[in-house]
C-alpha cells in the first residue's frame, strides 16, 4: 500500500494531521506532533524522489477515476525535488518553531498555530504533486489562506503584521482570481482540466481565448511568486511574520509557485505557440529588472528582515531568468537556484529569528557587535549571507555559476554578456547589503542588553541549514545533474507523457 500510494501520502499526511493537531493540548505536544509529521513527510518525499529518479514520472488517480474524469496526481522529477525541499524546510522549521512560538505566539494558540503551519505545508505539497489544473488552484488557496493567517500572527509583536497580511490577502486573492479566470478560459477551449490532457488538446490551438488564458494564468502565478512588478506584498509579509513562518515561507511558497509556473509553461502550454517568445522575453526583462531593483532597495533598508525579503524578490529574478532561457540548462539552473535559495534563505531567516528571540528586534541597530555575543548565530548568518552573495564553496555560487553557464549557452534576445553583467552587478549589490549587516555584526561595539540564550532546539536547525548551504556548494554535482534531468523531463518527456488513462 505504502509504495503504491507514495505520490499522495506526503500531501495527505499533513492534511490529516492538521485537524488532529488542532485537537492536541496547547503545549509542546502540538509542536512535536507537527515536527514528527514533517519528518515522516520528508522520508516519504525522499522515497518518492528516489522512485521518480529511477522510474520516471509517477501518476496516481485519486478516487480511482482515470485522467479526464477524475483528479490525477502526477509527480515528475522536478516536482519530487520541490516536494522534498518543502518537506525538508518543514522538518527544519517546525522544531525551531516550537521554541520560537513560545515567544511569538499566545500560548493558548499553540496547537492552532501548528495546525495552520501543517495546512500551509500540505497546501504547498499539494500544489506540487497534483497534475490537475484546478486542483492546483485549490491547493494554492489552501496554502495562501493559511499563509495570510500565519503572517498576521506576527501582530503579537508588531501591529504592522496585520497590514502586511491584509495587503498579501488582497494581492494574493487577485492572483488566485486571475489564475482561476485563466483556467476558465482554457476550459472553454478544451473542456478538460487535466494538465497532460490540456496540453494534448491545446496542441495547435492558438486563438484569442488561449492567449488570454495564458496571460491570466501567468499573471496570477506571477503574483503568487512575487515576480518583479507584482512583488509588493512580499517584503512586508516576510518582515512582520513570526520568524519560523518567515523562514518557512521564504524558502517554500514562492518556490512552489515557480514550480507551478514551470508546469504551466512547459507541461500545459509547451512551445507550440506563436506568442511564447514574447512571454519569455517578458520574463527575461522582468527578471533582470527585478533582481536589480530589489537588491538596490534592500541596501537602503534598516530592518534586517526587510533586507532579506527584498533580496528574496531579487533572487526570484534569477529563477525567472533561468526559466526565460527556455533551455534545459536554463530551467535546470532555475531549479538549482530554487533549492539553493531555499536553503540559504532558511538559514538566514532562522538566524534572524534567533536574534529576534534573543534581543527582540530585527533592526540593524540591534545587530551591533553581535559577533561577540552570539557567535554561532553570527556564523550561521554569515554563511547564509555569503551564499546569497554567491561566494564559492556555498550553494549560492553553484546556482549563479550554472545560471551564467546557461546564459552563455542559449540564444537570447538580450546578449548574454549583458545578462552576466547584470547578475554580477546584482551580486555586488548583495555584497553591499550583506556587507552592511556583516559590518554591523562584526565590527561595531555591542550596545544594549545582553541577549537571552538561544535554546538548542533553535540552534540545531540553524546550524544544520548552514551546513547544508556549504554542502550544496561543495558537492553540487548530484543536485545539478538531478535538476538537469528534471528539466529535461519538464521540457521534453513531460509533453509526450500520455497518462495512465
Amino acid at each position, binding site marked *: 500500500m505504502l509504495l503504491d500510494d507514495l505520490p499522495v501520502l506526503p500531501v495527505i499526511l499533513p492534511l490529516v494531521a492538521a485537524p488532529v493537531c488542532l485537537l492536541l493540548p496547547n503545549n509542546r505536544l502540538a509542536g512535536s506532533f507537527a515536527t514528527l509529521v514533517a519528518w515522516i513527510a520528508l522520508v516519504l518525499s525522499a522515497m518518492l524522489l528516489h522512485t521518480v529518479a529511477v522510474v520516471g514520472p509517477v501518476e496516481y488517480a485519486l478516487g480511482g477515476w482515470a485522467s479526464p474524469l477524475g483528479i490525477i496526481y502526477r509527480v515528475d522529477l522536478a516536482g519530487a525535488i520541490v516536494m522534498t525541499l518543502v518537506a525538508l524546510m518543514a522538518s527544519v522549521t517546525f522544531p525551531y518553531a516550537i521554541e520560537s512560538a513560545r515567544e511569538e505566539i499566545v500560548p493558548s494558540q499553540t496547537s492552532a498555530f501548528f495546525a495552520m503551519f501543517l495546512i500551509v505545508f500540505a497546501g504547498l505539497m499539494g500544489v506540487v504533486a497534483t497534475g490537475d489544473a484546478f486542483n492546483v488552484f485549490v491547493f494554492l488557496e489552501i496554502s495562501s489562506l493559511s499563509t495570510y493567517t500565519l503572517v498576521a500572527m506576527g501582530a503579537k509583536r508588531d501591529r504592522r503584521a496585520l497590514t502586511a497580511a491584509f495587503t498579501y490577502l488582497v494581492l494574493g486573492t487577485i492572483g488566485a482570481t486571475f489564475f482561476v479566470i485563466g483556467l476558465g478560459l482554457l476550459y472553454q477551449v478544451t473542456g478538460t482540466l487535466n494538465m497532460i490532457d490540456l496540453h494534448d488538446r491545446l496542441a495547435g490551438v492558438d486563438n484569442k481565448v488561449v492567449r488570454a488564458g495564458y496571460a491570466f494564468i501567468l499573471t496570477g502565478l506571477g503574483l503568487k511568486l512575487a515576480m518583479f512588478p507584482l512583488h509588493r506584498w512580499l517584503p512586508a509579509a516576510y518582515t512582520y511574520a513570526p520568524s519560523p513562518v518567515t523562514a518557512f515561507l521564504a524558502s517554500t511558497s514562492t518556490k512552489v509557485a515557480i514550480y507551478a509556473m514551470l508546469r504551466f509553461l512547459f507541461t500545459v502550454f509547451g512551445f507550440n505557440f506563436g506568442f511564447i517568445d514574447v512571454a519569455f522575453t517578458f520574463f527575461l526583462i522582468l527578471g533582470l529588472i527585478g533582481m536589480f531593483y530589489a537588491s538596490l532597495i534592500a541596501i537602503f533598508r534598516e530592518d534586517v528582515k526587510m533586507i532579506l525579503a527584498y533580496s528574496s524578490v531579487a533572487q526570484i529574478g534569477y529563477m525567472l531568468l533561468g526559466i526565460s532561457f527556455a533551455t534545459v540548462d536554463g530551467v535546470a539552473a532555475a531549479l538549482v537556484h530554487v533549492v539553493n535559495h531555499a536553503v540559504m534563505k532558511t538559514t538566514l531567516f532562522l538566524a534572524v529569528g534567533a536574534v529576534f528571540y534573543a534581543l527582540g528586534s530585527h533592526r540593524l541597530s540591534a545587530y551591533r557587535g553581535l559577533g561577540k555575543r552570539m557567535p554561532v548565530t553570527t556564523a550561521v548568518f554569515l554563511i547564509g549571507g555569503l551564499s546569497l*552573495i554567491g*561566494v*564559492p*564553496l556555498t550553494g549560492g555560487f*553553484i546556482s549563479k*555559476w*550554472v545560471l*551564467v*553557464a546557461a*546564459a*552563455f*549557452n542559449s540564444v537570447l534576445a538580450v546578449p*548574454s*554578456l549583458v545578462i*552576466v*553583467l547584470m547578475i*554580477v*552587478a546584482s*551580486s*555586488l549589490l548583495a*555584497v553591499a547589503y550583506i*556587507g552592511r549587516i556583516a559590518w554591523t555584526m562584526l*565590527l561595531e561595539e555591542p550596545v544594549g542588553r545582553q541577549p537571552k540564550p538561544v535554546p538548542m532546539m533553535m540552534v540545531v536547525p540553524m546550524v544544520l541549514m548552514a551546513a547544508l548551504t556549504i554542502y550544496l*556548494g*561543495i*558537492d*553540487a*554535482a548530484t543536485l*545539478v545533474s538531478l535538476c538537469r534531468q528534471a528539466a529535461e523531463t519538464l521540457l521534453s518527456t513531460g509533453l509526450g507523457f500520455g497518462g495512465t488513462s
Partner: protein
Amino acid sequence: MAGLFQLLPLETAVVVSMAAPLVAFFVVALLDRSPNLREAASITAGLVTFYCAVTIFIGVGDGARPEIDIVEMLPGLSLKLAVEPLGALFGLIASGLWVVNTCYSIGYMRGHHEGGQTRFYMAFCVAISAALGIAYAGNLLTFFLFYEALTLSTFPLVTHERDEAARAGGRVYLGILMGTSIGLLLPAVVWVYGLTGTTDFALGGILGQVSANMPLVFSIIVCLFAWGTAKAALMPFHPWLPNAMVAPTPVSAFLHAVAVVKAGVFGVLKISIYTLGAVELSQSAAADIITYVAAASILIASAIAMTQDNLKARLAYSTVSQLSYVTLGAMIASRYGILGGGAQIAAHALGKMTLFMCAGAIAVAHHKKYISEMRGLGRVMPYTFTAYIIGACSIIGLPPFAGTWPKFLLMLGSIETGDAILVGVLILSSLMNIVYLLTPAVRAFMDPVPGNQAAEIKEAPAFCLFPPWFTAIGCLVLFFYMGDIIRYLEPLVEGL
C-alpha cells in the same frame, strides 16, 4: 642541505604549508592570555610554512608539478591546487617574509602597545594561508576563492586601529577590492568558463581559440582580468592602497611586500601566462592598452609619491608605481617581459619590506610619520636609515642590489617588442624614484638635528631593527642569485 628539504612528499608539503597557519590560527586564539606563547606559535607556524615552501620550491625546480584536487563541485568546476615555478616562487617569498614580518610585528606591536594583538595574529594566519592558496591555485576558481579570502582576512588588519580613520580606510579597501573582484574578475572567470568549459591553468593559455576567432571578446577579457585583480593596484583602482595606510606598519609591510599587492601582480602575471596565453596576449590590442595604462600608472604614481609628506603614503604610491612594472611585463608578454615581471616580484618584495620596516621602526622609536620631521634623524638612528638606503637603492635599481635586474630585463623586453617609449618610461621612473626615495634618507643624514641637540643614538627595539637589516642584506644577496631565479622561471617562457 637540499636533503633536508626532501623529507616531505610535495603534495603533503602543499597541504601542510597551507594548513600550518590555520592550525596556528586556532592555537593563537587559544593562547590569548599568554602573549609569548602566542607569538611563539605564530613564528613556529611561519617556520613550518617556510620549510614547506622551500621544499616545494626545490621540488618544482626539479621539474615536479604537484597537483591536489580538493573538491570537484561540478564537472569542470573544481577547487584544485597545482604548483608551478611562478607560484612556488611567490609562495617562497610570501612564507619567508611572513616569518620576518612576524618577528618585526612582535617588536612593533609591543613597542606601540597596540590592542587586540591576538586578533591581529589570527588574521595574519588566515591571510598567509590565503596567500599560499593564491600561489598554489590550480585554476581560476581556486585563485578567485583564495583571492577573496585574502581580502577578507586582511580587512581586520587594515582596520586594526578601530577608529574612524581606520574604518573609512577599511571601507575603501574592502569596497574597491571586493567590488572589482566580484564585478570584473568573477565575470572574467565565468566568461572563460563559458567559452572554454574549464578554468584550469595551463601553460600557453586556454583562450587561443577565442583570441583567434573573437578578438574583441579576448580583449574585453584581458581588460577584465587586468583591472579585476585590483590588488595589483593598476590605476584607476589603486586608491585602496594609500587608504590602507591607516593600518599598523607590519600590516602595511604585509600588504605591500608579502602578500596582498604581490598576490595581485602575481595574479596578473599568472593569468597572463596560464589563462590568456603570452602569444595571444602579445598580439592583442587590449594588452597594448593595458601596457600603456601601466606605464602611465608608473609615472603618475611616482609623481604623486613625490608630493607626499607622510613617509608611508609615499611608500604606498611607490608600490603602485613599482608593481605596475609587473603588469607592464606581463602585458608586453615577451620572454624578457615575463621574466622581468617575475624577478620584480621577488626584488620588490625585499626592497619594499625593508623600507616599510624602517618606516615602522622610526615610528616606534620616535613616533614620527612625516618626512619633514625626519631631518637629522639619520644621526639618531643610523642603522635604520642605512637599511632604508639599501632598500631604496634596490627599488631604484642601482647595482649591486636586487632591483637592478628586473628593470634591466623589462627594458630588454621593451626593446624586444619595439616599444622604445617604455624604455624611456622606465628610466624616467627610476629617476623619480631617486628623488622621492633617497631624498628623505639623505636629508636625514645631512641635515642637522633639530634643536641643536647632540646626536645621541636612539634606535628602535631589536625586533624592529634586525628584520629590516635581514631583508636589506637579502637585497644585496639576491643581486648575485637573481640569475638562478630567472633560470628557475625559465619554464614559464618556454617557446617564446
